[in-house]
């Protein structure tokens, strides 16, 4: 199904099942331990051996020699895989550097060997017996030091690396009110609960990988390419994913090494990355330096807005695309953005939840707060003044829908924004200085082609199959809701099967495109199934309705199951997008409100209240959408207050590579969180009229927290995370 004209009324609009806060259908499996994860496929794989990954001990250089003899002789060891004995391996399209290194080392903890043994403990012990001598090379690890030498990034899915509209320099210089400030965000880790893990089994030249992956089709492609086998001989199965946040968009060492280990040991092998390896072996969100300049007239109209950003990555890597939102979110005739990319030899950077906008909004929305203060305007009023209903770079391109002003309005009323004093340090509650902060939320809505297969059987059950993944987001549930709505069934008559490359290729989970695109694919397949049912039952297509398990046409009412009386009916289709996303700018919007307390003596920071108001198209399931947003708000608090992969600039690695050192919020850090959704349906996004919401909830949170801290203390911190040591010396 080609989606190239705005959606009109369709069966989803009935909202009998879609739009309801239905419990996650996988929830019961998760909490009873019956959702099988990649490392625990005892049901599918008997007698697996265990692989233990050895990560490089240096950040840059090469392996001089490896002595495997002691490891091979260790009890239980079955095989030791290294680049030398693994055969020809290619680099996956989605990987920046090789997943099995040798002799050259690109970054710390890049995999250099896999030890396979009968038990996990034997594999780990064997790994300790591998002796490796390295020759250290010179690497670059310090973004600030590399900043001046960084060249312009290349073009990519993010568009051009630099943009310019009007005369930014002239307008900024002429602006009576100016802000020129630099902000930094640190490297961050995905730190999801389930590690990267895979179980591999070969049957002749056919490989099955039970793995934990967000994007099944990309994964098949890169496994096939890396191993040099035909894609049709690779099957990926990933029905449950214990969190990914972008860290599992790509095939990683666990999958490739499990496959190589299984080939060498001639039996199934399972591999999980250890927690320390996860931080330096896999991808992370790269650190950024961001310079923002805003010029405005005295009455608060932005006349010039510029956003430049520096990030680093391995050679052939990509920038952290922090300037994207600045091209779109606020009006202003003169604009520029630029992204520069330095070569660093840290682990490879890549997508983490809301890549680009998450760190970009952390900076931009402090800048907006600073500018509002310079202008003597309320920060919400300043944003309202500079709202735009069209793409400010091409004014003939409207937003498909944009209710940012409305989000602020509703949020301000709910949160009691009028009680905020614009004067920092004015509110106190015992030992706590209390402050309120606000920030816009903005994340683009991306759409991706997505396919599904639906099957009606004689019991009247509809089974949906698609390689879509559920990374804790609620995909199972919203897909079941979609099929139920389309086929006129209650949700318990729908079975959803996900995450298997034997199923039609879907949008996958990433970039907050999964919810809207994958359900639109199911919609397309269901339209086809409805046609097949109508044909089979010889009904008049024009006036047919599917409701309550029945198909009605004129005065005929037939149970849906009857259409499959002589055998299952199967329909497959996919949604494909035309140029609506080009003609209309599709984005999601929101407003974050935060109240913090800062201990007047110790500068300890505690978030006291949070509210997010989101305008993100039709909300397919308010319960799972709310879960996505509160999870994102929690992540935003982490980014604001504690998350930082600390770079050892001499040795070139992330030092705090475990969950004791890389702190993410715990329950005690997170207060009551409120979420409100505006009632929207966006006919430009898909037949579902939905948009993404899982990343929107993160964008802007960090700045709202930082702005609240400023309101509490009068100390403006521009370097994340905002930790107490950055406040303390400036608080009297």
């Amino acid at each position: 199904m080609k989606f190239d004209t705005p959606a009109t009324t369709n069966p989803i609009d009935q909202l009998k099942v879609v739009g309801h806060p239905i419990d996650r259908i996988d929830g019961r499996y998760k909490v009873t331990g019956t959702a099988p994860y990649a490392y625990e496929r005892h049901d599918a794989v008997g007698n697996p051996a265990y692989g233990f990954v050895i990560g490089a001990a240096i950040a840059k250089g090469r392996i001089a020699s490896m002595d495997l003899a002691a490891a091979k002789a260790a009890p239980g060891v079955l095989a030791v895989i290294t680049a030398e004995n693994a055969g020809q391996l290619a680099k996956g399209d989605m990987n920046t550097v090789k997943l099995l290194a040798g002799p050259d080392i690109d970054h710390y903890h890049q995999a250099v060997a896999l030890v396979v043994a009968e038990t996990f403990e034997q594999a780990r012990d064997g790994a300790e017996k591998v002796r490796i001598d390295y020759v250290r090379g010179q690497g670059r690890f310090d973004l600030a030091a590399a900043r001046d030498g960084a060249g312009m990034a290349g073009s990519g899915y993010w568009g051009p690396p630099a943009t310019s509209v009007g005369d930014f320099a002239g307008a900024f210089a002429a602006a009576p009110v100016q802000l020129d400030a630099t902000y930094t965000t640190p490297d961050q880790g995905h730190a999801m609960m389930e590690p990267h893990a895979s179980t591999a089994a070969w049957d002749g030249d056919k490989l099955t990988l039970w793995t934990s992956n967000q994007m099944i089709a990309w994964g098949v492609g890169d496994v096939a390419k890396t191993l040099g086998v035909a894609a049709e001989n690779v099957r990926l199965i990933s029905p449950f994913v214990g969190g990914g946040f972008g860290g599992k968009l790509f095939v990683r060492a666990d999958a490739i090494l499990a496959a190589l280990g299984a080939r060498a040991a001639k039996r199934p092998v399972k591999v999980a990355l250890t927690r320390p390896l996860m931080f330096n072996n896999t991808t992370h969100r790269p650190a950024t330096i961001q310079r923002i300049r805003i010029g405005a007239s005295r009455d608060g109209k932005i006349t010039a807005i510029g956003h430049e950003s520096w990030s680093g990555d391995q050679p052939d890597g990509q920038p952290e695309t922090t300037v994207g939102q600045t091209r779109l979110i606020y009006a202003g005739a003169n604009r520029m953005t630029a992204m520069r990319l330095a070569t660093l030899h840290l682990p490879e950077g890549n997508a983490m939840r809301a890549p680009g906008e998450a760190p970009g909004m952390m900076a931009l929305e402090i800048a907006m707060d600073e500018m509002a203060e310079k202008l003597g305007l309320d920060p919400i009023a300043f944003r309202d003044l500079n709202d735009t209903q069209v793409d400010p770079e091409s004014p003939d391109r409207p937003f498909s829908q944009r209710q940012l002003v409305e989000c602020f309005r509703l949020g301000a009323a709910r949160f009691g924004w009028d009680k905020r004093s614009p004067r920092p340090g004015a509110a106190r509650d015992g030992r706590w200085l209390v402050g309120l902060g606000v920030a816009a939320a903005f994340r683009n809505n991306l759409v991706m082609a997505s396919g599904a297969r639906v099957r009606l059987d004689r019991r009247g059950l509809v089974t949906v199959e698609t390689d879509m993944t559920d990374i804790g987001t609620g995909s199972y549930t919203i897909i079941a809701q979609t099929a139920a709505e389309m086929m006129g069934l209650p949700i318990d008559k729908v079975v959803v099967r996900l995450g298997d490359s034997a199923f039609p290729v879907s949008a996958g989970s990433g970039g907050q495109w999964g919810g809207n695109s994958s359900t639109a694919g199911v919609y397309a397949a269901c339209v086809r199934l409805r046609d097949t049912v109508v044909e089979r039952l010889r009904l008049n297509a024009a006036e047919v309705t599917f409701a309550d398990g029945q198909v009605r046409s004129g005065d005929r009412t037939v149970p849906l199951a009857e259409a499959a009386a002589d055998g299952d009916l199967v329909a497959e289709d996919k949604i494909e997008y035309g140029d609506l996303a080009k003609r209309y700018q599709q984005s999601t919007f929101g407003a974050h409100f935060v109240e913090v307390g800062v201990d007047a003596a110790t500068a300890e920071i505690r978030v006291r209240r949070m509210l997010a108001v989101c305008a993100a198209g039709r909300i397919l399931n308010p319960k799972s959408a709310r879960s996505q947003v509160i999870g994102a708000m929690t992540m935003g608090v982490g980014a604001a207050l504690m998350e930082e992969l600390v770079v050892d600039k001499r040795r070139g690695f992330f030092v705090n590579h475990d969950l004791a050192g890389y702190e993410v919020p715990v329950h005690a850090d997170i207060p009551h969180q409120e979420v409100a959704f505006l009632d929207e349906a966006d006919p430009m996004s898909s037949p579902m009229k939905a948009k993404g919401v899982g990343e929107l909830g993160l964008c802007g949170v960090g700045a709202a927290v930082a702005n609240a801290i400023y309101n509490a203390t009068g100390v403006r911190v521009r370097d994340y995370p905002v930790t107490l040591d950055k406040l303390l010396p400036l608080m009297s």
Partner: protein
Amino acid sequence: MRPFTYERAWTPAAAAVAAAGTPGAKFIAGGTNLLDLMKLQIETPLHLIDINGLALDKIEPTPEGGLQVGALVRNTDLAADARVRRDYPLLSRALLAGASGQLRNRATTAGNLLQRTRCPYFYDTNMPCNKRNPGSGCAALEGFSRPLAVIGGSGACIATNPSDMAVAMRALDAVVTTVGPAGESRTIAMADFHRLPGDTPHLESVLAPGELITGVTLPKPAGGTQIYHKVRDRASYAFALISVAAIVHKDGTGRVALGGVAPKPWRVEAAEADMPRGAKAVTSQLLAGAAPTSDNAFKLLLVERTLGAAMTEARG
């Protein structure tokens, strides 16, 4: 993890004899620190002596009006004991500020005293670390040192002792009791129990090989208002950036011990004479001679502010 042998000990004396007589032996109590370190190949004992069967899990009154806490009393039980909560609230609060409920259920009094540092380089066996691998160097000195010591460290090591419990015990003048392989018992004041690193950061306590901790004696209650303020980046389940254990009497006198600033719980009795003069005066003596790195110099001001807040709070 290196392969190891294992035995259970049934009397303290037998445990000490076994430990002294078996090369590479270590006691295991709750295992919450030792097992993690063994999995990472940081501790590599050849033999484990499980002491959980020793009857050292009681809290009993002493003739002097104090409490005798068995080495195997779990952190949860010690924190919840009605006498501890009434007479030694500082200890109860320090314990509850540490780790998580699950860990405290398992962690023991003796194990807590002997838990090892949380210096991140100590945890990475690819990195030089004099504490883990004597003579290999110290990666932290010119690396990431924000969490590390500002005083008491050496050119060989600036790791902190991470225990919260030990800080309270130091302020309470607790005494460690032990038994050695020859059956001899001795007492060691908390002040003397942990060593400063000097050139030998791998030696962390004054215990002799095979010496087993049998318990900790708390002297008679110190009274006063007792405050344990642990400052950290997140609200719970994190090690201290710094902590302040303060006992403040009505007349402004009292005691102070610090956590998170030194390789051992940090207390300077002479500084306490200045308590009536306020936090600044006390801190300048407590931390006299501090040698912070640029990463952790903020701890000095943080101590002063936190102590000041504790003293204000104590005055009501």
